[in-house]
């Protein structure tokens, strides 16, 4: 029964991830990403990583989705994904080969779970890894600057004139017509 729950959640996450990759509309892709984040956070909760699950759900499925939808509202609904440069069968073959090799190398050596009941997340985060907590603070500051960049100068709208040279615009014209 426990395995069935894990398999259902895992298959749902992988299916939503695949739909997010192949979705034509960016908004659909973002919503599938939020579904993946929610399913992964349930898996994390079942594995005992409660704090990580809460952060993943609030940040991954909440904040990041809001940022994506806001960015999409700025750039416009016409920003659809285009055709792939690499042939899709070749990409699938490469990825399946690599994923199969990784699973083959890792799967037989997975040891049984062991618990460290002494060390808490608070102690691990604030005492044993104090340095990269400061790095996280710097990263959050960078994130705030990024949000300011996201909000900056968006009044020109998506119809702003491109700044590339005229020759480059002419070179790209047949591609735009083909779309």
């Amino acid at each position, binding site marked *: 029964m*426990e*395995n069935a729950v894990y398999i259902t959640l*895992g298959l749902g*996450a*992988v299916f939503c*991830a695949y739909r997010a*990759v192949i979705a034509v509309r*960016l908004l659909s*892709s973002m919503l599938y*990403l939020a579904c993946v984040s929610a399913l*992964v956070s349930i*898996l*994390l909760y*079942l*594995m005992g*990583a409660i*704090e*990580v699950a809460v952060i993943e759900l609030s940040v*991954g499925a909440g904040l*990041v989705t809001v*940022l994506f939808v806001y*960015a*999409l509202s*700025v*750039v416009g609904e016409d*920003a*659809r994904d*285009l055709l*792939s*440069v690499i042939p899709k069968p070749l*990409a699938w073959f490469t990825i*399946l080969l*690599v*994923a199969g090799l990784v699973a083959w190398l890792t799967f037989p050596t*997975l*040891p*049984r*779970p*062991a*618990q*460290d009941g002494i*060390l808490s*997340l608070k*102690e*691990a985060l604030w005492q044993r*890894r104090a340095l990269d907590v400061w*790095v996280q603070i710097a*990263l*959050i500051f960078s*994130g705030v600057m*990024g*949000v300011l*960049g996201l909000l900056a100068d968006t009044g020109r709208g*998506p119809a*702003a004139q*491109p*700044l*590339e040279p005229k020759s*480059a615009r002419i070179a790209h014209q047949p*591609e735009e017509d083909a779309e």
Partner: protein
Amino acid sequence: MTPLDIVLLVAVLLLGVAFYGLLITRNLIKMVVVLQLLVKGVVLALVLAGNVGGRAALGHSIAVTVIVADTVVAVVALALAVQVRLRFGTLDIPGISSLKG
């Protein structure tokens, strides 16, 4: 097959799907979405490694760090994508390339 084995397979499959997405995607915002998918698999693998290695709290704290860093990467990348769209009029990566030859 234990639940941890299933989680390992899910993490590997998520990484595979995300790498496939990175190969075929040429839209800047879609690429950020795919990077987020990649990090979901990494977070699962980190928590799993902490659990099976007997250092669960360390794995959890590293996973928290990865989530924070990934969010910042998404924010900065989205800001860059918006600015690229406003300046070049497109999000297509070959369309914004100014290098010739």
